């Protein structure tokens, strides 16, 4: 340590030697932090199991990309860049912070490897890092107080604004940076006054500016300043450390773990109970999440890790139309409950049911499981599994809205939510006129095929959606696929049944279908319904590989089996709406677009929200039966987005999107100005059919009921 100014450790203040003072602060700070963290770990120990210790390489990959690489942050440009700078600053300053802390009790401590030139370079870097972090804090405070981004607003029903706490925490970091810089500046100013070589040369850095400002300050004053800055740094550091676990900055500690243990696959759901096989599920006393302890430890860690940035809710379609759901507050409310239920002093009381106290029923039923929140979260917090677990709990308690009970009952007795007769399942394909255009086999012991077209309920029974079924069949026929359908033997895929929390009914539907598929002897499955696609791909086991019709068409285009005629009306502007279960949940973004771009003369624009930021149509399956409380339909918002993009034709690739978008076009008053068409319908309509046989087919095809689309 330099002469002239006593090192902080040597100073005696109020008869207490610095070394002892700081040792006490260290011990108290570390002990308090350890106690707080131990308390925070209590619920995690009591939580449900969640096996997340597998695949270390994939997990390290996640850490490198999403934690160290801050991958999601630039999706919000300004805040994202600020966060990356702060994160980088913290990373760089970590070792320095450690060194500074030790210097208080061990005056000449130098971090191994950081002596000499390396140390000088490191100090230069950290001087600027501290400066950048300080400026980012000032920026963030100004942003919070003056510009007030909408996504930070706390709606009245969720309590008071979080601004004060956020600003307080930001200010503490700013103080930390300032104290650190002042500590260094005072020392450097002292060195300069004594004619000693000055170690601080980082021009325009915060320490440098402070040093310059302190140039004329008397030496004893500098000494006191030096000591005070150090003390302030110490106290602020430990205060922050111990205060963070009480709020939004706990992610500083938890984020690394939260990202490492994040869910590795998409489109899947967690089982009812990890480690319990389907056969033993009947022995499980209670399904789903009813009290806080029913969450898995990882889901609790999610609650701790939320930084309250509001990106999830900013992208949530349910939140956008005023449904009583905001993913951000699912987490915040659960965290507040956890903190209150597991207090710092004393032990946890008896857990109360979460539904009706922390969460409302409507809140949990409002989710469309579109996955926009999860896609956006920089910390990889999961929502769908939690929502589904909460629904499982409600279903288990018989707590299901009347609007959903009828379709669920019909699914149980008839295998479809509409209560339609099984024998009518293949009516869409068996109509005589259509059979002349395209013969669709119903698979049974005599009739085999290579490919199964899994139609699912809505396309089979809904008059409008049957057109998607016919288009799909004609496409498969056109590319020479040997295919068939299960007909009456096909029950609903159960995709929404599962996502609405009725696991037992889902398992019955799945087992029935899996058995029927196995018996049919097919080698692959094709479907035009992304929900069925996702179910067959992720929820079913031991069924042949499944493809969505958009993938089939795209590869047909690539191989030359499918060629398109130019669009009839060159003035039409098309836009593609990504269905959630094709896009976000299964990353099929390019195939549908490639198909559209292969149609000569087709003008295509992108909506501002597309691909992984696509905006849900309002939800499929059972969501069509649920009557949510909302100010506006989600689909109406989506249709307006298409209009804003300058499109007049919305192409989608999901029958549920079609229901919602066509309804929304009417509700938005855009009838006649905007149309919707399924990708399969469009492909069928535009396919160039050259052989004489198919020309004859086309003649029949002009019958109005089989002309797809318009």
């Amino acid at each position, binding site marked *: 340590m330099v002469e002239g100014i006593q090192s902080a450790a040597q100073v005696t203040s109020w008869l207490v030697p610095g070394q002892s003072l700081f040792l006490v602060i260290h011990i108290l700070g570390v002990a308090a932090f350890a106690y707080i963290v131990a308390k925070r770990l209590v619920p995690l120990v009591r939580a449900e199991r969640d096996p997340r210790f597998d695949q270390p390489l994939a997990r390290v990959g996640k850490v490198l990309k999403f934690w160290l690489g801050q991958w999601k942050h630039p999706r919000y440009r300004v805040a994202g860049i600020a966060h990356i700078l702060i994160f980088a600053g913290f990373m760089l300053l970590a070792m320095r912070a450690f060194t500074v802390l030790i210097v208080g009790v061990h005056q000449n401590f130098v971090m191994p490897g950081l002596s000499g030139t390396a140390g000088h370079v490191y100090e230069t870097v950290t001087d600027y890092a501290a400066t950048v972090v300080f400026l980012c804090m000032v920026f963030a405070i100004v942003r919070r107080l003056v510009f007030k981004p909408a996504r930070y607003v706390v709606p009245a029903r969720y309590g008071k604004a979080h601004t004060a706490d956020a600003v307080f925490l930001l200010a503490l970091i700013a103080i930390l940076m300032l104290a650190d810089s002042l500590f260094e500046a005072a020392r450097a100013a002292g060195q300069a006054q004594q004619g000693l070589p000055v170690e601080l040369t980082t021009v325009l850095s915060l320490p440098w500016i402070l040093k310059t400002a302190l140039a004329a300050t008397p030496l004893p004053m500098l000494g006191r300043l030096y000591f005070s800055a150090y003390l302030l740094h110490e106290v602020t550091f430990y205060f922050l450390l111990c205060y963070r676990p009480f709020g939004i900055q706990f992610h500083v500690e938890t984020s690394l773990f939260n990202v490492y243990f994040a869910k590795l696959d998409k489109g899947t759901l967690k089982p009812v109970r990890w480690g319990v096989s389907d056969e033993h599920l009947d022995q499980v006393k209670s399904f789903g999440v009813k009290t806080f302890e029913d969450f898995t430890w990882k889901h609790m860690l999610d609650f701790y890790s939320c930084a309250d940035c509001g990106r999830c809710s900013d992208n949530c379609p349910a939140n956008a139309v005023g449904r009583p759901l905001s993913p951000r507050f699912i987490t915040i409310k659960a965290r507040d409950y956890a903190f209150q239920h597991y207090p710092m002093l004393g032990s946890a009381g008896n857990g109360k049911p979460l539904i009706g106290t922390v969460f409302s029923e409507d809140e949990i039923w409002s989710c469309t499981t579109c996955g926009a929140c999860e896609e956006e979260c920089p910390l990889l917090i999961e929502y769908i599994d939690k929502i589904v677990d909460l629904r499982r709990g409600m279903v288990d308690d018989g707590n299901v809205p009347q609007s959903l*009970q009828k379709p669920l009952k019909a699914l149980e007795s008839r295998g479809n939510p509409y209560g339609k007769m099984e024998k009518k399942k293949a009516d869409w394909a068996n109509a005589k006129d259509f059979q002349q255009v395209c013969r669709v086999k119903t698979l049974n012991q005599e009739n085999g095929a290579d490919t199964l077209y899994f139609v699912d309920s809505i396309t089979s029974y809904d008059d409008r959606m049957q057109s998607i079924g016919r288009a799909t069949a004609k496409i498969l026929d056109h590319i020479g696929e040997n295919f068939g359908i299960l007909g009456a033997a096909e029950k609903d895929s159960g995709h929404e049944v599962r996502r609405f929390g009725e696991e037992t009914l889902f398992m019955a539907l799945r087992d029935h279908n899996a058995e029927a598929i196995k018996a049919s002897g097919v080698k692959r499955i094709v479907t035009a319904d992304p929900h069925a696609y996702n179910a067959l791909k992720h929820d079913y086991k031991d069924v042949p590989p499944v493809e969505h019709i958009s993938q089939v068409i795209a590869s047909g285009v690539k191989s030359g089996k499918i060629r398109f005629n130019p669009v009839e009306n060159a003035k039409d502007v098309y836009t593609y709406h990504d269905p959630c279960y094709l896009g976000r949940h299964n990353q099929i973004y390019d195939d549908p677009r490639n198909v559209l771009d292969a149609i000569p003369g087709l003008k295509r624009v992108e909506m501002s929200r597309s691909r992984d930021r696509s905006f849900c149509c309002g939800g499929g399956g059972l969501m069509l039966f649920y009557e949510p409380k909302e100010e506006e339909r989600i689909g109406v918002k989506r249709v307006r987005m298409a209009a804003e993009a300058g499109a007049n034709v919305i192409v989608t690739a999901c029958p549920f999107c079609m229901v919602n978008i066509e309804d929304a076009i009417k509700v938005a008053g855009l009838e006649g100005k905007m149309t919707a068409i399924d990708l399969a319908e469009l492909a069928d309509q535009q396919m160039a059919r050259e052989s004489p046989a198919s020309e004859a087919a086309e003649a029949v095809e002009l019958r109005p009921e089989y002309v797809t689309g318009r």
Partner: protein
Amino acid sequence: MEILVCARRVPDTSENEIALNSAGNDIERDELVYSINEPDNYAVEEALQIAARAGGNVTVVTVGGEDDEEILRREMAMGANHGVLITDGAFAGSDGRGIATILKAFVQKGNYDLILTGVQAEDGAAQVGGMLAAMLDYPFASLVNAIEVLDGKKLKISREIEGGNKEMNEIDLPCVLSIQTGINEPRYVGMRGIRAVASVPIPTYGAVELGVAAGTVGEAAAKVKRVDYFVPTLGRGAEMLEGDREENIEKLLQLVAAKGGLK
């Protein structure tokens, strides 16, 4: 409070396409799916809610065959303490009075404070509840859409009357009430709940156990006999209003007001 709910299994109108058979004397029953008569389900839910508030047990009873056990299991999965199946070849073809006679015999073997039925069976005539009350010499109230237990001896009930209005009554226990749909929101029962009660034994009673004389029930004793079914011929289509929008709105308002839809 000991509560008995009389329930019945009927073809589910929302999940079937009801058609006459070729003989025209019954509906086509080959591919029907059945479920509990909807108002009876509300009655069970109400019974469960009363038992939860005032204590007691809920028993669900049905007169029918082996297949009807299905609805008893469903209601037990909802929370009913007991299910009882009354079945006997001699009961087949009973009219409403016959069913009421059988139920009366069952009620007298137990000690029930409150007997609930659905307001009517979807394939029935809304008669069994009233007849059962008369045979037991119990007070009866129909179309009940709210129940409050006043003390051990009385209930305060609300009945639905014309135009959705409510009439409040006090009724002495024991009594028979026919329950209107909408009195509550019945809880959901899934396959899992039904599976959990799959092995609970369901006692069955026949004519001998109940002491019902075979001659007083069954087809032979029925005094109301179904002779035919028919589908009404389609009437005129919807009335189309013609004129401009303002006129149509005016006419529509008049029509709705004339039918009592506006006050």
